[in-house]
């Protein structure tokens, strides 16, 4: 597999380079898969294709970060249950043990006719099949008063790593009796229970270190995932600390003033000490640049996660319009395996099996008190459809809640091994 380093951006030479024979003719040489995005979807897909094809397929993984900090479980770091290093994972094993060509760069464009991916560093990577798993980006202007330049003053912490550490530092620096505010996102967004686990974990940390502090949430949604379970827990452990303002009290008209550190909920202005703004989301930008999005997300065929716009491009995880599946790391990992099986079959005639998907979301409400929701999914009538699942119940005993939490630890260890080897 060749990265063409002769190509530099923005020169007239680009047109000449496109004519150069960089792509091996079909049927000659090893088929190539390029994966953009090294998270739960992309890393899993790269590993499974490399592992199961036994060298028959060249796999390149393009991922800008050298250490991937999972957004899942980052709330547990906020609560004090994890160190930041517990969340970090590197790509050395994918390279060494599985022969994945790990390229730390940004994909900045896709030429679907030439079947190449352009890199910010200046190369072009050819593909036979392209898998995009770029996660999410934020919708400009969705929270009036906030843009990406505000993310230091008012972190989103909805991409793992530096933002997570920043939010934790701000939490720790709050004055006694101060206010932690959250602007919760509208549907659909990454990790439906995520903001509410975050509220629980922040409340836990505050109850230990700053018990007179308050949490104020502006939420444009009337309902949220596992609501009865979270509210039971908040009442049990953090009574009086959390106030959630919903759409019935004007939460859809919320704006922020980054300089003044205030939030305005339908005309009612509050001073806040920390403000976690979680804006509306859309597919990671490379999906839009590749031309596979329709509105904010990339529609896919449920049988194999292939893009409805291009049969040689697949979209996994949060960036996809994924039917009934929630946007979660577990879902991305599940979709990646269906995709990997289909891509291998398309390139090497290996056996292809019918798509089966599943998801489970675990949330930690307080120490040793974990809850979960999950379901199975199958293709039906053009979309990934929910065929039934389970959810924790209110009133469960402490032993079951502890077992549920411990299960989530087992899952984290399992999924990160599944992604990174």
């Amino acid at each position, binding site marked *: 597999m060749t990265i063409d380093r002769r190509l530099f951006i923005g020169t007239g030479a680009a047109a000449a380079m496109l004519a150069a024979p960089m792509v091996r003719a079909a049927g000659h040489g090893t088929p190539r898969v390029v994966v953009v995005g090294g998270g739960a979807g992309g890393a899993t897909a790269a590993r499974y294709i490399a592992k199961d094809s036994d060298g028959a397929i060249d796999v390149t993984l393009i991922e800008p970060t050298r250490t991937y900090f999972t957004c899942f479980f980052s709330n547990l770091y906020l609560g004090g249950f994890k160190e930041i290093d517990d969340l970090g994972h590197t790509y050395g094993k994918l390279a060494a043990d599985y022969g994945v060509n790990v390229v730390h760069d940004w994909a900045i464009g896709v030429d679907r006719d030439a079947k190449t991916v352009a890199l910010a560093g200046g190369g072009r990577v050819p593909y036979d099949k392209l898998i995009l798993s770029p996660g999410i980006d934020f919708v400009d202007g969705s929270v009036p008063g906030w843009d990406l330049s505000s993310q230091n003053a008012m972190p989103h912490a909805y991409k793992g790593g530096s933002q997570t550490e920043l939010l934790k530092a701000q939490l720790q620096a709050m004055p006694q009796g101060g206010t932690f505010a959250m602007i919760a996102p509208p549907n659909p967004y990454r990790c439906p229970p995520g903001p509410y686990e975050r509220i629980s974990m922040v409340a836990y940390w505050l109850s230990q270190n700053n018990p007179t502090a308050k949490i104020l949430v502006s939420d444009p949604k009337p309902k949220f995932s596992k609501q009865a379970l979270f509210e039971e827990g908040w009442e049990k452990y953090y009574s009086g600390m959390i106030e959630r303002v919903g759409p019935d009290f004007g939460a859809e008209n919320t704006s922020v003033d980054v300089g003044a550190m205030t939030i305005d909920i339908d005309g009612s202005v509050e001073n806040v000490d920390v403000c976690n703004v979680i804006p509306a989301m859309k597919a990671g930008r490379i999906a839009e640049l590749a031309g596979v999005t329709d509105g904010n997300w990339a529609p896919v065929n449920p049988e194999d996660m292939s893009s409805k716009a291009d049969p040689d491009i697949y979209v996994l995880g949060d960036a996809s319009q994924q039917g*009934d599946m929630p946007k979660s790391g577990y879902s991305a990992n599940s979709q990646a395996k269906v995709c990997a099986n289909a891509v291998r079959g398309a390139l090497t005639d290996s056996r292809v*099996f019918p798509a089966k998907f599943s998801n489970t979301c675990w949330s930690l409400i307080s120490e040793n008190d974990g809850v979960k929701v*999950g379901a*199975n999914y199958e293709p039906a009538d053009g979309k990934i459809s929910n065929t039934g699942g389970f959810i924790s119940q209110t009133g469960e005993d402490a032993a079951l809640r502890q077992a549920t939490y411990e299960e989530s630890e087992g899952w984290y260890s399992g999924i990160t091994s599944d992604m990174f080897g």
Partner: protein
Amino acid sequence: MIGSARILAIAIGMFGAAQSSFAETFGDPENGKVLYQLCSGCHAVGEGARNKVGPLLNGIFGRTAATIEGFRYSNAFKRAGAKGLEWHAEELDVFLENPKQLVPGTRMSFRGFDDPSERADVIAYLRQYSDSPSDIPEADPTATATDHDLSPEILALVGDAEYGEYLSSECTTCHRIDGADEGIPSITLWPEQDFVVAMHAYKDKRRAHPVMNMIAGRLNEEEIAALAAYFANLED
């Protein structure tokens, strides 16, 4: 449990597999919308819907009967709700066949849909106006799972380890392939018979665990055998 070898039928490709390999949706929401005209005289649904002669039908899936605030239900319906009638696809199917039979004394004067596929279509139409499982993962299903016992295309040799390997990818997110045991038990190198016994116990709900009941519930005998063969024969 593990019987004699059976004929191997290979699924050649995604689109070669018969439609029975896919889950069934409840019905056709487009036709359901047409049929709903029989309801719309009394019931509103969708954006801006409000109570009329009958209560609005937004968010009905997963809701206890007779719980819309501000609507004056008949005593019959209030009793039904208090006794635990909760609306899911199955209950709506029974109700829409003959409302007065499920809730005698209801004021709803509608004879019902005799044709089960018409009921399914209306149910599919209404499903669109309740929580989407992509936003609220615990929301009601939108399709019925494949009945694997009727999918001959995925019959495999008992102990088809290659099929087991594909199926195992669902397991190995939680059950570590290296056999580690951290909050989730190890399933590697089990004797095949023990593996099959355990999985069938989860499938038949003789052994209770919501995640495993769900996962085993949608695997048939051949798939469990395939997984047993795969996990039993892992090389270090």
